[in-house]
């Protein structure tokens, strides 16, 4: 049994474990220590023992080898995990708050009748019970929640925990089980990777990013001009991409790309956690937003509370003058 244990559901895509897996694993070790139990990594996949080897920071790796899970399939993964967790009954199960994690966490909560605390930026054990801090309402509000059950699930925001403790050079203790579920009601049909050719914003050193504050698609031109005058590339937050105003490759954030440029200018971006996650490690962050309470100002190095339609053209113009000299 896994009483007092903390389970981490590892996440991987195209042969690589995601950073958040290691972030969760590092945190899991400290919580497990509080509980007097083990940190266990759970890896589902097909022929991914090489990935299992990378999870040595865990006290044990439970590797579910399943030919049907070469690619992540929500229903299939959920069924396998439900059976596993039902048997093992860990005190805490950590799942990443990502596209894959979203299909797992709530499904397991309903299926196992275990509480789920979502959008976690912190978690700990208090007298054997799990307490977690979550960020909701676009990051504007924090909530500290106590789980009333002995078995809890948390979905963890990427980028909130350091990943150092999740990496280890020691050999992983791997226990392999074989899965063989029937083909279910959800079938994997393919993976689409965006064409190379458009810019890779993760490689750009200077980025100017535009958010909902820009208002309309036509106004993006103003920001494009600023980017061009700075010699920077254009990026954007989720609402701009969802509206179809810029291609997906430009999206910064949880469901987009993580960038660490030398300069990140955030124009009209409020700074919801999902966006911050994608850019908070930039070396120099300058944020322009008319709302003084916008969460972006928490991570920015310099902040300008003003109408972007005043600042952006003025800055563009000054850069043109300066470059002309």
């Amino acid at each position: 049994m896994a009483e007092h244990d903390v389970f981490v559901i590892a996440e991987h895509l195209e042969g690589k474990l995601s950073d958040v897996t290691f972030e969760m694993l590092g945190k899991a070790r400290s919580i497990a220590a509080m509980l007097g139990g083990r940190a266990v990594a759970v890896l589902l996949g097909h022929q991914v023992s090489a990935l299992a080897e990378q999870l040595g920071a865990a006290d044990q790796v439970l590797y579910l080898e399943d030919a049907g899970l070469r690619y992540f399939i929500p229903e299939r993964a959920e069924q396998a995990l439900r059976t596993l967790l039902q048997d093992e009954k860990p005190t805490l199960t950590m799942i990443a708050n990502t596209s894959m994690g979203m299909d797992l966490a709530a499904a397991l909560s309903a299926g196992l009748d275990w509480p789920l605390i979502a959008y976690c930026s912190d978690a700990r054990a208090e007298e054997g019970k799990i307490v977690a801090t979550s960020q909701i309402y676009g990051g504007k509000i924090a909530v500290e929640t106590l789980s009333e059950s002995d078995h809890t699930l948390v979905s963890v925001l990427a980028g909130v925990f350091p990943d150092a403790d999740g990496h280890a050079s020691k050999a992983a203790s791997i226990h392999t089980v074989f899965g063989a579920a029937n083909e279910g009601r959800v079938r994997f049909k393919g993976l689409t990777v965006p064409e190379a050719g458009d810019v890779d914003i993760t490689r750009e050193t200077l980025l100017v990013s535009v958010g909902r504050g820009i208002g309309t698609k036509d106004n993006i031109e103003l920001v494009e001009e600023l980017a061009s005058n700075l010699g920077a590339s254009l990026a954007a937050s989720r609402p701009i991409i969802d509206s179809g105003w810029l291609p997906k490759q430009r999206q910064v954030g949880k469901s987009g790309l993580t960038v660490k440029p030398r300069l990140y200018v955030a124009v009209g971006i409020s700074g919801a956690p999902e966006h911050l996650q994608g850019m908070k490690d930039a070396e120099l962050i300058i944020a322009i937003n008319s709302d003084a309470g916008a969460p972006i100002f928490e991570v920015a190095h310099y902040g300008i509370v003003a109408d972007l339609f005043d600042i952006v053209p003025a800055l563009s113009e000054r850069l043109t003058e300066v470059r002309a000299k």
Partner: protein
Amino acid sequence: MNIIVPVKQVPDLVEELEINNDGTGLERDALKFKMNEWDESALEEALQLKELHGGAVTVLTVASGDVDEMLFTCVARGADRVLKITGDFEEQHDSHTAARALASAIREQPYDLILTGVQAADDLDGQVGVLLATYLGIPHISVVSGIEVEPLTRTATVHQEYAGGIMATFEVDLPAVLGVQASRAIPRYAPVSRVRQAMKTARIEEIEATTPAGAGISVRRMFKPESTGHAEMLEGDTDEIVDRVIEILRERGIMR
């Protein structure tokens, strides 16, 4: 094709959010509510699929607070039926409570597909769509932005978004719950005259649910996040600010 769209209202983030005196929730008097933006995308997607395949779109919500105007707006946008689920619900209820109530109401309706927003800003205990699917025992796929339905084989082909623009394509047997991230068109505007007409002529059906409430968690404290750091704010008029920005860029060697 029968499509069900569960929706809910969330506090409008345009207003400043205040914590109540207890420190365990939001000060509700100061709140203005609006339909969850992802649910708006789900409804738009449902209306688009109805235009393609025919059928009916039914919108459901748990009756907590004043939801009528939201439901009439859904009618004005093109929903065929709107249902309010009544019962002993607190105004601020959690996703598990909502999902159980929705499941009990939905079991009594005919449906081929359930579309709901992938998430909402106040989903402390997880996303309603996935909980609902599990309670109903049907498959679910979240973060969907691309739905094609094949009525003949009763399947749907959907795109699930991962980070970095990568997308996975799945085929799913219907009925299923899809958590919509983005619709194929921006949610349509409901002209006020249509909303007012709906208020006069449309009927909100009611269905009772006696499902249990609670998600096994209790909020100890709600607070505005402490800033671990804060930006240095640049002051002055536009020119002064622009000057300072150029100075900073020079200092950091980003500009000569």
